[in-house]
């Protein structure tokens, strides 16, 4: 399974939180032949299952979210302009003069208004709030009202580019790239070596409320969970400490909110199989679906595997293909290893 090709297959499809269903067809086609079953859930998540055929095999939840940050249309104005609200965290510094796609009855293009200098006064002074921005569509108000309505999703355009060293830049790789890494991992496991029943939950609305992961867990009742998400790669302006390095493999989370035993089991597995990995400490919160998964049901040992990514939540997110391959290799090796069972430890009496 080629990661770049898979990414290109779904790159043009939007999945702003709440509209994940638009991506389902693409996900189904990526999952084809890899899982035993793939179904859509009521909250727009997708659940893909591949059992190992062993009796009493533990269930492992592999999770990546399929929603992306974006915007909803809030109003149509005279002259063919749109107002929008952000869905998920968007830095307004990246909006000025950016190209967008508006997914209305027809798909149309637009650009964010960049206030001309004679109107903006002291340009270095401040950034406007997103509610003060406008999108210029080149259409008339009447034409526009036929195409969009309140709630129509809007996405910042970010073409998929191959940079030097097999680094890839694109929008919405948070977190589609990790979904692809999971599918690749599952496709790599020889059936005879699979030790867990695999439940891949491609969850909705992580960017807003973690809805899909919070509810999806109840469909699965897993014994352990690996949440695969993107993490900040080291770059100018952010702390070296706590940020990830490219090409050093996936980052295994150590946090008060992730399972230390599970994390250590993964690190051991990486070492045994000679797969590069890095450790990352996120003391109080991983900022991922793992936060909710860990305390769902009667508690689920969960941890996070992070893929280094720069420029998160922009149309120019950058990842390393090599890291993706290592991510897939590590997940695959862990499912084949099967040593970790995630069982409760009985001290007195029987469990």
């Amino acid at each position, binding site marked *: 399974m080629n990661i770049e090709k898979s990414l290109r297959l779904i790159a043009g499809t939007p999945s702003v939180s709440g509209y994940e269903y638009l991506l389902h067809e693409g996900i189904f086609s990526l999952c084809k032949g890899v899982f035993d079953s793939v179904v859509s859930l009521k909250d727009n998540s997708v659940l893909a299952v591949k059992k190992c055929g062993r009796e009493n095999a533990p269930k492992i939840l592999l999770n990546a979210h399929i929603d992306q940050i974006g915007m909803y249309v809030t109003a149509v104005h005279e002259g063919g302009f749109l107002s929008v609200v952000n869905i998920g965290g968007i830095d307004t510094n990246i909006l000025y003069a950016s190209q967008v796609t508006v997914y209305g009855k027809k798909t149309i293009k637009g650009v964010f208004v960049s206030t001309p200098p004679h109107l903006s006064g002291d340009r270095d002074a401040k950034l406007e709030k997103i509610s003060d921005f406008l999108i210029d569509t*080149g259409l008339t108000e009447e034409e526009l009202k036929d195409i969009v309505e309140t709630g129509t999703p809007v996405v910042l355009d970010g073409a998929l580019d191959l940079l030097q060293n097999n680094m890839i830049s694109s929008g919405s790789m948070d977190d589609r790239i990790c979904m692809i890494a999971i599918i690749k991992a599952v496709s790599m496991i020889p059936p005879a070596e699979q030790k867990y029943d695999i439940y891949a939950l491609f969850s909705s609305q992580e960017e807003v409320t973690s809805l899909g992961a919070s509810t999806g867990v109840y469909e699965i009742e897993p014994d352990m969970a690996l949440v695969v998400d993107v993490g900040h790669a080291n770059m100018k302006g952010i702390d070296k400490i706590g940020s990830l390095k490219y090409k050093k493999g996936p980052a295994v989370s150590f946090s008060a909110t992730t399972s230390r035993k599970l994390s250590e089991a993964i690190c051991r597995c990486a070492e045994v199989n000679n797969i590069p990995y890095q450790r990352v400490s996120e003391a109080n919160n991983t900022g991922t679906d793992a936060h909710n998964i860990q305390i769902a049901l009667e508690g689920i040992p969960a941890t996070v595997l992070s893929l280094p990514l720069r420029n998160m939540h*922009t149309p120019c997110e950058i990842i390393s293909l090599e890291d993706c391959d290592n991510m897939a290799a590590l997940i695959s090796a862990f499912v084949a290893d099967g040593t970790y069972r995630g069982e409760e430890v009985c001290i007195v009496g029987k469990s």
Partner: protein
Amino acid sequence: MANLELLEKLCNASGVSGNDDEVKDIIINEIRNYCDRLYIDRVGNLIGLKKGRKVSKNRIMICAHTDEVGLMITGILKDGTLTFEAVGGIDCRVLSAKRVMIGKIPGIICSKPIHCKTAEERKIPVPTKNLVIDIGTESRKETQELVKIGDTATFRSEFIRLGENKIKAKALDDRLGCYIMCNILKKDLEYDTYFAFTQCEEVGCRGAVSAAMSIKPDIGIVLETTTAADIYGVSGDRTVCEQNGGAVVSIIDGSTIYDRTLYKVAVECAKKNNIKIQTKKYVSGGNDARSLQRTAGGAKVTAISLPCRYLHTPSCVGDMRDAEQMEKLCFKLIQEYGDLDI
């Protein structure tokens, strides 16, 4: 919309001030068979003479600039990323998380993720000096193989249609002017006319000075783009001019008071020929007219501009209906101005 392919090619070409050969090559290829003389002067202006049916009383020079605002690489950091400075006026707010091309090398202007910004940082734009370009390399050494200090970078921005009549592209300022000049050059003209594709307008209207020195025009017509701020919520003179309001014929801008006679002739000419025009309502900006007006003893000048939204950003938006009016007006004015007693 006529021959948008040429306009697309011109807009997509890389031509940051001082490094615009790619643009000139496209133009040369387009017009060489229509010129009676065509040369690149010593500072890089591309100048063409097209003979008309007659020699006019006044020597006419039409000009548009080939250069665009862009970036220049100033340094290579240890992690392989590049520092840069803006060439020409670029609002730092339009830079974060934009795609650029450094020659043939694609790059990304990095943007610190919102998660890593403090509440204070989220309120202010990141200044240009704190931004870097990432090309995917991991070390200074690796980058040095690909990019040199002093290389220029342009925005990467798709040339697309917005609605029926508008286009969005980088560098409409002033490839649109170059495009109209190419179109006019291909027509039969009444009078001998000089066409100057000038360089370095964005850094002080410098090329036009040398071009005017060598042509010594009596009358200069500048084909340009000018800010249109006719966006929702802006009214009156603050809009500067309006899209689909026709060609903008200037009375005054930030650096030139235009010749009153030429202005009146242009207004009359537009009326006579049913050409839609408007004037600039706000005193701001400037263009090559300022150089033509004061070089080599001076010339009378007119500027005909496209009302263009979001100038000097990766996403300039222009209305081709206005471009058609510009072309018509400029073509007619060659004759009208040639006949003038001045």
